[in-house]
């Protein structure tokens, strides 16, 4: 097992409010790490720390380290880091431009010019996000006109077009119907060959369906991390058991 991301005693605050408490865990290469937990347990804070998106929040403070391929991400250039660690948000928020421009946005910012190469990148990303068939005749439509499920896969395509190594998902299916959800899940499983993924989800069933290992967060603490067949069936911690059997949260 290659440890793609290694988080060591990571603690963070907003103002003085503790959001994460000494989290230590590793994300293995080519796995889908699921993260579950009730509201305000720190799931979002955690994955936004992995691509330093929390840096935008001026009240955010942190301690501890996050290593990507053994290198401290907080010592890296944040833009370069975010190119390697992409993110798909809860709200499928397309940028206010055409489908094509949305997908081409990242590559263009990173200096990729030339229509032919861009066309290829866009097509590849849309294919990988299982959106090519639906979009190939609508590339110049405004992305804001797509359905929620399509927009979410468009956001995924946009992220893929940057060719990251890791993709973070923050409740990517929370606003989607079951069919769109199934499509996104299917896509994620296909992407596993090439990418390392972290999936935050409120849906325990989803975590057990797609993740290779699942971590349970509670009040900013990592309670337990294990393969789903154990975490959901024979958890070691009482709190995990209570949560996965629906007794709270």
């Amino acid at each position: 097992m290659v440890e793609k991301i290694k988080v060591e005693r990571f603690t963070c605050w907003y103002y003085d409010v503790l959001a994460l408490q000494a989290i230590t865990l590793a994300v293995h290469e080519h796995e889908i790490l699921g993260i579950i937990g009730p509201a305000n347990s720190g799931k979002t804070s955690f994955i936004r720390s992995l691509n330093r998106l929390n840096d935008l929040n001026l009240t955010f403070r942190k301690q501890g380290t996050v290593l990507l391929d053994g290198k401290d991400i907080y010592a890296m250039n944040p833009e370069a880091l975010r190119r390697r660690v992409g993110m798909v948000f809860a709200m499928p928020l397309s940028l206010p431009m055409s489908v094509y421009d949305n997908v081409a946005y990242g590559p263009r910012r990173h200096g990729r010019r030339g229509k032919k190469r861009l066309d290829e990148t866009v097509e590849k990303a849309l294919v990988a996000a299982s959106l090519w068939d639906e979009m190939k005749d609508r590339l110049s439509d405004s992305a804001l006109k797509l359905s929620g499920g399509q927009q979410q896969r468009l956001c995924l395509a946009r992220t893929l077009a940057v060719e990251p190594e890791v993709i973070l998902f923050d409740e990517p299916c929370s606003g989607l119907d079951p069919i769109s959800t199934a499509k996104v899940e299917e896509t994620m499983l296909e992407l596993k060959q090439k990418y390392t993924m972290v999936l935050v989800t409120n849906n325990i069933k989803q975590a057990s369906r797609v993740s290779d290992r699942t971590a349970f967060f509670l009040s900013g603490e990592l309670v337990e991390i294990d393969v789903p067949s154990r975490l959901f069936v024979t958890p070691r911690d009482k709190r995990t058991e209570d949560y996965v059997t629906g007794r709270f949260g």
Partner: protein
Amino acid sequence: MKRLFDWIIERFIFLCGILAVIFVALIFLFLLREGVSFFGSYSPIKFVGGIYWYPTSDPPQFGIISLIVGSLFVTVLAACLAIPLGVATALFIAEIAPRWLKDVLKTVIELLAAIPSVVIGFIGMVTLVPLVRQALNLPTGLSAFSGALMLGFMALPTIVTISEDAIRTVPWSYKEGAIALGATRWQTMYRIILPAALPGILGAVMLGVGRVIGETMAVMMITGNAAHIPGSVFDPVRTMTATIAAEMGETVRGSPHYEALFAIGLVLFVITFIVNFTADTFLRKARR
């Protein structure tokens, strides 16, 4: 009860809207009436195409080309100064400045908007005009350039405040989405925030430029009021608004001169209307 209240409010708002339209229509009709009676005795072609504005000679000449050019010089130059500076300032306040500086700047700029234009004109006359004369070694500092500097300054608060609003209301998620793709702060501002805020920024620019076109007191005090076609922006000019303001008091009601001033008003109205209409069409396209 609630129904009745809703009904009353609805009618009231409707009435306000209609009244605004009626007022504008009445103003237009009034201008049109005075203007048309002027064109009964003076050829509109000679009016719009004439170079000489000698309202008191015999026979009087009412050619407004030099006034139109004067207005154009001052307005365009002021807009060229105020728009980039204003939008950049708005971007700085909304996106870059730390909290305390943001508050300071916003307060100062709002104060600026509250200064009456006579005061700005006066300050410009005693400070800016001599400065321009010395710095550029001109025979007089009273020029289109000085006027444009002052007017650009006056349009700034409008442009900054409204653009800043527009920039601030760009959804945070657009920003985050771009940043998460590895865009830098500057790329995000330039490629995402500015385009998304463009309709609002255009509105701000229109209002600001509207203030410049309609401004009277300050231009009258600073531009030198020479009714001739300027050779450069450093020449004295006279604008349409300044002409109306300066001469209205000396005319006899109902005289050709008096009516000619109304005709200038009509031309101003039409120009403003065209500018607004163009901006509106453009805005609607941008919003789509």
